[in-house]
């Protein structure tokens, strides 16, 4: 008999809110977290993109200076979100050997790495700080969260570019189902609003260049979409074996009913135009959760606002859900907060859990002329979801051909 896994704690720090209640309120209102970057390096390096979506609450307003000194900015966001999720779960007494961490990142400690490189060049090796390695390593965030909570059943860092956060949920589910843990702190964190990644993503034509209108730049499904907006932040979810949650009388948000991970094996960055890998991921997550197409009422789409990315996801949704896709309320929340890369799947999972729990689908902004080739029912003002047993899906896809899906069921 498969162990049922439920979600009992949520945390987030994002461009549209430094905690879950603020983010959720804004997600229902429809706000943009994108702003013109005031940093001198934008002009210094003549970056083609002048804006991004920074976290609305700087990490240093939450963490102490000394705490923050030992963490890359991505880890700072991860620890902030994990602490909120942990407090929200209400867990006080627990077996440390049965608590695991699955905390993802797409890029990891890029600020630390490049700052240390600058220090080496300018001041020599003696000045490269001894904390450099533990701060830049991609598992730094999982390690910091494990240390912070006292989690001893393993600390893992799935890395699959922009699918990483969703893949962390997949791993978390497996850890509980297989009996290796009773509780898993899952999440994703990213802090890559640095001139080098901005230049690199711009170089591959992935970023919007709507420099005169940052708030209108992330426009999934719109005919005028021209790329994604770089975001940053973290999301965190406490996964718990149902019997463990029931035994302590926990507040249960929803069930993590099914997850899946597939690979396109098609191209290193371009999505398979027929969305075959994404279709297999959707079908696998639904099979895993014993979900029929008719059960699905809401999808939090990957929808990054790139010209080539948004359509194959639609093709995959139609292939997996059939004609029922026309009845599904689709939200593209990257329109509001930009693309949080390795954190996006975790933050969007938080939004999907809340959508199921509160029975409200969050808003897609900037949709003025919907691409006729993507005839989805896109949620442009907050919409109620039906009563009864419902399921919502959240998709994430990453460079490398990674596809990951989570299915959330109401309880």
């Amino acid at each position, binding site marked *: 008999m498969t162990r049922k896994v439920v979600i009992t704690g949520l945390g987030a720090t994002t461009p549209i809110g430094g905690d879950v209640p603020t983010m959720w309120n804004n997600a229902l209102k429809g706000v943009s977290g994108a702003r013109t970057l005031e940093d001198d390096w934008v002009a210094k390096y003549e970056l083609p993109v002048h804006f991004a979506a920074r976290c609305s609450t700087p990490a240093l307003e939450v963490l*102490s*200076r*000394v705490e923050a*000194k030992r963490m890359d900015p991505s880890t700072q966001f991860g620890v902030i979100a994990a602490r909120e999720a942990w407090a929200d779960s209400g867990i006080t007494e627990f077996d440390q050997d049965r608590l695991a961490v699955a905390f993802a990142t797409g890029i990891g400690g890029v600020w630390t790495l490049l700052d240390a490189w600058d220090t080496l060049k300018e001041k020599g090796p*003696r*000045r490269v*700080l*001894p*904390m450099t390695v*533990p701060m830049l390593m991609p598992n730094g965030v999982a390690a910091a969260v494990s240390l912070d909570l006292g989690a001893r059943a393993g600390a893992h860092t799935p890395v699959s570019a922009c699918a990483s956060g969703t893949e962390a949920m997949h791993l978390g589910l497996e850890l509980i189902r297989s009996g290796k843990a009773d509780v898993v702190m899952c999440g994703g964190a990213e802090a890559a609003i640095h001139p080098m990644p901005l230049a690199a993503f711009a170089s591959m034509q992935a970023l919007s260049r709507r420099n005169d209108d940052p708030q209108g730049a992330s426009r999934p499904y719109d005919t005028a979409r021209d790329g994604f907006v770089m975001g940053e932040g973290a999301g965190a979810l406490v996964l718990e074996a149902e019997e463990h949650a029931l035994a302590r009388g926990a507040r249960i948000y929803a069930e993590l009913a099914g997850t899946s991970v597939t690979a396109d094996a098609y191209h290193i960055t371009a999505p398979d135009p027929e969305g075959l890998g994404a279709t297999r991921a959707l079908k696998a997550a639904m099979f895993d959760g014993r979900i029929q197409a008719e059960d699905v009422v809401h999808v939090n789409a990957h929808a990054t606002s790139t010209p080539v990315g948004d359509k194959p996801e639609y093709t995959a949704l139609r292939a997996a859900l059939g004609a029922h896709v026309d009845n599904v309320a689709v939200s593209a929340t990257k329109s509001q907060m930009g693309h949080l890369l390795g954190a996006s799947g975790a933050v969007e999972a938080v939004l999907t859990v809340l959508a199921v729990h509160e029975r409200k689908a969050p808003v897609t902004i900037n949709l003025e002329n919907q691409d006729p080739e993507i005839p989805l029912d896109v949620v442009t003002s907050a919409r109620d979801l039906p009563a009864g047993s419902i399921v919502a899906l959240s998709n994430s896809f990453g460079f490398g051909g990674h596809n990951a899906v989570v299915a959330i069921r109401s309880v």
Partner: protein
Amino acid sequence: MASNEEILAGLAEIVNEETGLAPEAVELDKSFTEDLDIDSISMMTIVVNAEEKFGVRIPDEEVKNLKTVGDAVSFISGAQA
């Protein structure tokens, strides 16, 4: 040339920056590990910052001999001479 008092005050500032400990807690007879709970990574950061502040070189093999704040003040003072 800094006096011993100035070196102590400078070290206390560096320790505060790295660990958050109050500068008054950084006294000559305090052990870095036992009393101030400073781990080896923080110790190396403090050493490198002290080298820059006081214009001295503290060789890696010397760091393990700097058990107390007083040891560090004496070493830095001697290295400046």
